[in-house]
């Protein structure tokens, strides 16, 4: 049972994860599994305490249950998003469209439906916190936006636009190959790190969120263009 002892001294924690779930057993089990996988983690079982823990712990990723005592998970999600772009993965007991979409629209990057397989959860977490290799100096442009990949910043005529890491990845993915039309499945694989086909609503919701930040008129998108029946591509303008 050496795995439970934590990472070996020459290998630092891969990341810090805040687990917000009202079920104490599940939260504890999650910390055990995450520790095995090399992540440091902290538990929080109340919604109203989640923000304090978040500011205190400064996690690299938040696992957030939607049904919480004290404060709703959706509200917690919005508050975190208001002050940080840290990846948020929702844990939900309901796979219904409405819950998922509401959660994604309040700022979550991804979601996992209970009961999930631990390996699946870990894969999703890894996909969201995998930023270790310092990217090469690379600058891209899409429409009238310029993207500094290494500096993780997007500017329009010198004015910076604030994007979450996921939205940034999505935009970079489209901007790197402006000639290519990306299907939702390909985007799920390249941006979210899914190996199997998953819920394409993730893509739809995040494209909407990205558009609301980068488009002049989100109703008539020019930067992220929908190719009907296929997927999305970078705009020519």
């Amino acid at each position, binding site marked *: *049972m050496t795995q439970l002892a934590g990472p070996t001294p020459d290998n630092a924690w891969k990341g810090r994860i805040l687990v917000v779930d009202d*079920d104490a*057993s*599940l939260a504890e*089990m*999650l910390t*055990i*599994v995450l520790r*095995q996988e090399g992540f440091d983690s902290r538990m929080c079982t109340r919604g109203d305490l989640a923000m304090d823990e978040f500011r205190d712990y400064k996690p690299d990723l938040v696992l957030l249950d939607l*049904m919480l005592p004290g404060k709703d998970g959706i509200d917690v999600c919005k508050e975190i998003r208001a002050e940080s772009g840290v990846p948020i993965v929702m844990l939900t*007991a*309901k*796979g*219904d*469209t409405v819950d998922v979409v509401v959660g994604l629209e309040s700022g979550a990057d991804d979601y996992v439906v*209970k*009961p*999930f*397989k*631990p*390996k699946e959860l870990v894969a999703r977490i890894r996909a969201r916190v995998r930023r270790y290799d310092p990217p090469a100096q690379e600058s891209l442009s899409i429409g009238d936006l310029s993207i500094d990949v290494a500096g993780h910043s997007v500017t329009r005529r010198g004015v910076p636009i604030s994007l979450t890491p996921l939205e940034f990845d999505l935009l970079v993915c489209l901007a790197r190959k402006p000639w290519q039309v990306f299907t939702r499945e390909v985007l799920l694989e390249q941006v979210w790190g899914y190996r*199997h*086909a998953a*819920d*394409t*609503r993730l893509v739809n919701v995040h494209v909407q969120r990205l558009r609301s930040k980068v488009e002049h008129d989100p109703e008539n998108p020019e930067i992220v263009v929908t190719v*009907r*029946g296929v997927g999305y591509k970078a705009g020519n303008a």
Partner: protein
Amino acid sequence: MSSGAVAQRSLPAGLRRGLTFWRRSIQARVVASTVVLSAVVVSIVGWFLLQQTREGLLDHRVSAVVAEANNETTDARARLAAAPGTDIDSASQQRDLIEPIIQRGATRGFSVVLAGPVGEGGRIADGGAESTLGLDTASVPLSLEQHFDKPAPTAWTYTQIRTTDENGVTRAHPGIVVGSQVKLPSDGGTYTLYYLFPLDEEQETLALVTRALLTAAVLLLVLVAGMTWLVTRQVVTPIRMARRVAERLAAGQLQERLQVFGEDDLARLATSFNQMASNLQRQIRQLEELSRVQRRFVSDVSHELRTPLTTVRMASDVLHDARHDFDPATGRAAELLQSELDRFEMLLVDLLEISRFDAGAAVLDAEDVNLVDVAHRVVDMTRPLAVQRGVEVVVDSPGHPCLAEADVRRVERIVRNLVTNAIDHTEPGGRGAEIVIHVGGDEHSAAIAVRDHGVGLAPGEAAMVFNRFWRADPARARTSGGTGLGLSISLEDTHLHGGWLQAWGRPGRGAQFRLTLPRRAGVPLRQSPLPLVPVDTEEPVA
């Protein structure tokens, strides 16, 4: 039924509307039939009354005119008898005879004709007859004339009297002609006197009576129609109200009630109707409440089960990963725990999906889906299972995209279910260990058919395969660990798309499952681009 409809379609619009009104309105039919019946009765009674009046009038007139004619004749005979017997000029005697009668006739309103002596074969029409000025002597009917060819007593008949006035205008009007004979002393011949009495007065009286009767009949009919309309209205209005309320109840407005006036039969009908509606409303509310509670319960159970299951699942994973550190028995237990948890989880997921369909909570997230892509993706997904079972799955693509407006998640789930089901029922490694996914599409629909050469289906089983937890052979071992809900969920998914999911199978000759989806969501399907019975099978011609 259909021929009637065809006949109706060929009618002009106005007539069709009239017919529809006639068919729909009890009131119109009752009023019309009452009016028709009344009209028949009134006509019979009126006709009878008219006949009676006419006969009475004529009888009276006839006896009066015959008496008058007899008087005249008697008077004439007396005058002839008193005439001096020496006068032998028959012509002057005739004039003497008729002149006073004509004069009296002019004041009393009758005309006279004196016809030639009987037995000489002469006719009035031959001329030579004395008559009232302006009278057409042909007014005396030939039959009466023939009657007086030989000496006969007084006789009468009806005729048309034709007269010509000073202006030369000829008029004809009904009348009675009475004939009687006198013997002229001068030549000893028997002459016939015809008295023509007009029936103008009687005719006028009859016309008056007829007008009165007609007016009365029309008024009576209007009265009957009005009364019937009022009476039926009293009955039909509440029925129409009840119909409207029943229609609204049927449309789901369960709070609708009839207004109750008084205590008569209709009021009691309304009361019973309202009671029925209240009972229905209560029952439906109860059922709705029950169903809501049950849905809520299922949803709560699902949520409550999911969290502990997640914990158990993770704990089991930890144990499973560390199973090599345990002694063999404990290690095997950890493996069993893991695999059974998989099954438990699958069952739970399927049950929740079914309960979501039952609750009507499933929503369609439709977009254009290419079924060829779906087929290839499903083949990729199911490859591990196919390889493990020694089965090959191939796609028979038509070479062009087969599009349908559908929810790609659900369609993939349907096809995956069909393919795993086919793999599950195929004998591994054999000659027929190949599963073919046929894809086809046209401008109205797209279809996927999954053909296997496995055990097939017994007659009657094609409809039962979609039943929940149904198994062809209860004793058969579960190989791929299906939950028994896969095809039921697929059928619900298909219904959500407005599509068809059908099965064909013969024992020992395999089975084929065909999914057909409409090209546009919500458009009803008419036919499938793929046959349900596989082309490689020679079906005996039924």
